[in-house]
């Protein structure tokens, strides 16, 4: 897929990948051999009819292809951009056995973008009459948006509650504009609104209104999709120095609050000349590339294992490399050094080597004694993961939680131990992918439908 040139894009916040032209899309679609076993469909967490939409592209019916995707996936413009297709649909593509798999993600994105520019993406939205019941969905990230959309399709009146001043959850505050333009998040949210979903911003469920009060107000069920928003820190000396951010703070300032447009926008962000980003996931790549775009001269990703173990998508690692991000692999921070005014003036790291496999099946990194060295940086961004956000769940007495504060659900129905309270996405699994959260939101919507139907004697 065509991209902005690295030396150009590293100085702007516009989308890196430019998308297919019609000709490129048709050519790519024609590579699909329409194999009868359709392994790609089972590789998709929400079961999109992949060969069918690709066939429609090949025939030039781009709007039809978009509608086909939306039968199963209400957020195609987003999924086409941020799904890890290389480990899902594309990983099992028959063509991939001998060569390049069909670029399913790029084609999905093409359809959604084409519809946005040439069609009326809202035209096929069925407005729910709300006759099936009332459901409160808490959190407007990928799990909540999908759950709300699915419930609206099933005839429910859905109210979607969001604690921030804007929708989208991690799609808004976490993923940068250059990877997922916010206009696309807006568009997908409009679609869900046109299905009759009511969105209430600035409501922190558990504080502004409690779960009990929601039930008293007449909601038949509640879905918790509050995500994994609690950042870990490194747990090393110096992590509270000025110039140390959690990736969440850094990215929220830039993405949600648009600090990259300071002082036109009021929220500031400070980034120094030499930045270290600690971690090897997509959030680390996003942070590093954002720091570069904010004017950092040198950005180094510090990761304790090797490149092969990095959890980030390969595409994002390559994008970062092309843009000039440096990687210090097999290294781990030990402490952050302070100048005399409480600002970062360096980060001491230790070299690592890979030892035995750990429980995750990856070789455990172990420090090499005496190999400490100092990285000359003035900014440190910690992107070492997040935990489920405890803010709402701890206000619900008796809710079963796992060891890391994750909500425990019945795998099949998505229901927690409290009748009528469902959950899905990162609040259940811990930090995972957008599409996994969407899959969970969708599954829970059907669990909720069964629960309410049974309770109302509509039976199944």
């Amino acid at each position, binding site marked *: 897929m065509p991209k902005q040139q690295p030396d150009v894009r590293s100085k702007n916040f516009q989308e890196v990948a430019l998308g297919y032209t019609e000709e490129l899309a048709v050519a790519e679609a024609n590579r699909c051999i329409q194999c009868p076993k359709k392994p790609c469909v089972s590789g998709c967490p929400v079961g999109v009819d992949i060969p069918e939409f690709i066939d429609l592209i090949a025939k030039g019916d781009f709007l039809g292809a978009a509608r086909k995707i939306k039968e199963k996936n209400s957020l195609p413009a987003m999924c086409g951009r941020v799904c890890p297709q290389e480990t899902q649909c594309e990983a099992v593509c028959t063509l991939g056995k001998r060569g390049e798999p069909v670029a399913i993600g790029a084609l999905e994105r093409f359809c959604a973008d084409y519809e946005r520019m040439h069609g009326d993406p809202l035209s096929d939205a069925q407005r729910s009459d709300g006759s099936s019941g009332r459901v409160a969905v808490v959190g407007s990230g990928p799990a909540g948006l999908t759950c709300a959309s699915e419930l609206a399709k099933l005839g429910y009146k859905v109210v979607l509650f969001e*604690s*921030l*001043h804007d929708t989208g959850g991690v799609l808004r*505050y976490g993923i940068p504009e250059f990877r997922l333009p916010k206009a696309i998040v807006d568009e997908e949210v409009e679609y869900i609104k046109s299905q009759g979903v009511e969105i209430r*911003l*600035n*409501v*922190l469920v558990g*504080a*502004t*209104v*409690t779960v009990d009060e929601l039930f008293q107000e007449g909601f038949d069920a509640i879905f918790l999709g509050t995500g994994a*928003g*609690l*950042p870990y*820190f490194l747990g090393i000396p110096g*992590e*509270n120095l*000025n*110039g140390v*951010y*959690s990736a*969440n*703070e850094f990215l*929220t*300032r830039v993405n*949600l*609050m*648009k600090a990259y447009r*300071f*002082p*036109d*926008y*009021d*929220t*500031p962000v*400070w980034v120094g000349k030499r930045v270290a980003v600690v971690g090897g996931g997509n959030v680390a790549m996003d942070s590093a590339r954002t720091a570069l775009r904010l004017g950092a001269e040198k950005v180094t990703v510090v990761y304790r294992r090797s490149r092969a173990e990095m959890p980030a998508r390969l595409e994002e690692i390559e994008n970062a490399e092309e843009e000039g991000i440096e990687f210090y692999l097999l290294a781990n921070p030990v402490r952050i050094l302070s100048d005399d*005014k*409480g600002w970062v003036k360096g980060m001491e790291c230790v070299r690592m080597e890979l030892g035995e496999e750990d429980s995750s099946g990856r070789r455990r990194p172990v420090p090499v004694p005496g190999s400490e060295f100092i990285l000359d940086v003035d900014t440190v961004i910690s992107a070492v993961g997040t935990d489920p*956000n*405890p*803010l709402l769940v701890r206000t619900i007495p008796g809710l079963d939680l796992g060891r890391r504060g994750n909500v425990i659900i019945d795998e099949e129905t998505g229901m927690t131990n409290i009748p009528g309270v469902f959950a899905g996405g990162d609040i259940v699994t811990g930090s995972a992918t957008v599409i996994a959260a969407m899959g969970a939101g969708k599954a829970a919507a059907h669990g909720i439908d069964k629960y309410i139907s049974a309770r109302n004697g509509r039976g199944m």
Partner: protein
Amino acid sequence: MYRILKKEMLAPKIKLIQVYAPEICTHARPGQFVILRMHEKGERIPLTIADSDRDTGLLTLVFQEVGKSTTELGMLSEGDSILDIVGPLGTARDIEKLDCVVCVAGGVGVAPMYPEAKAYHLLGTRVISLIGAQTKDMLIFKDRMEKVSDEVYYSTDDGSFGHKGFVTEILCKLLEDGLRPDEVIAIGPLPMMRAAARVTERFGVKTVVSLNAIMVDGTGMCGSCRVTVDGEVKFSCVEGPAFDGHKVDFDELIARQNRFLAEEKLALERYLAGVGGCKCHQK
């Protein structure tokens, strides 16, 4: 949208606004705060709740004009609107009847002190309030605090009202004279809270401080407001804003408050140049 129903100038640069926010008022308890955002390009500004009325749904906020955002907020008039308000945020103070509490409040910190003093007063706790300001003009909430306090002492930096000097000097004197309250609550500038905690530590008196760390989301997602308490990192937006004053690492927090000083200065200068400075005189 939240329309400003009432606006009052409490002191130079200290203003009070009231908005209708029934859901927040129903759930707000002493010690909690809200975050507001004035407009599409605005910052998220945390403000401790100065009063909340469950019956009328009126939420009272008091702020001091310091940077660009609070200055701009101060320019709003009755009838103008604030785009977003979310809350109540933070952990509420667990207030139960005690024999005696001392409320040490400085500057704009008197406003968030008021709901706590009021709650203690309503429970029948003896409330001794020590209120400090730079000058007599800068004293706020005087009548309100007097109504919920058994005794009130004042201090000003210039001696224009009450004791000349720091409010913590009155605290020290009272403790030296043998006063042993169950609890001291200190809300105000960080150096004042640090000084109060140092005084009470000498006498072994439990001390609660309310921290005004820099926040973004205010719901525990970003860690901007992290503070070291008893050697552990806490998020003041969620686990606070109230903490044991003897365990807070004030020096670290004071340094952290300077993180965006240069940007704040730039934003304020740019704003003032654009609006032509303070327009108070035009009102």
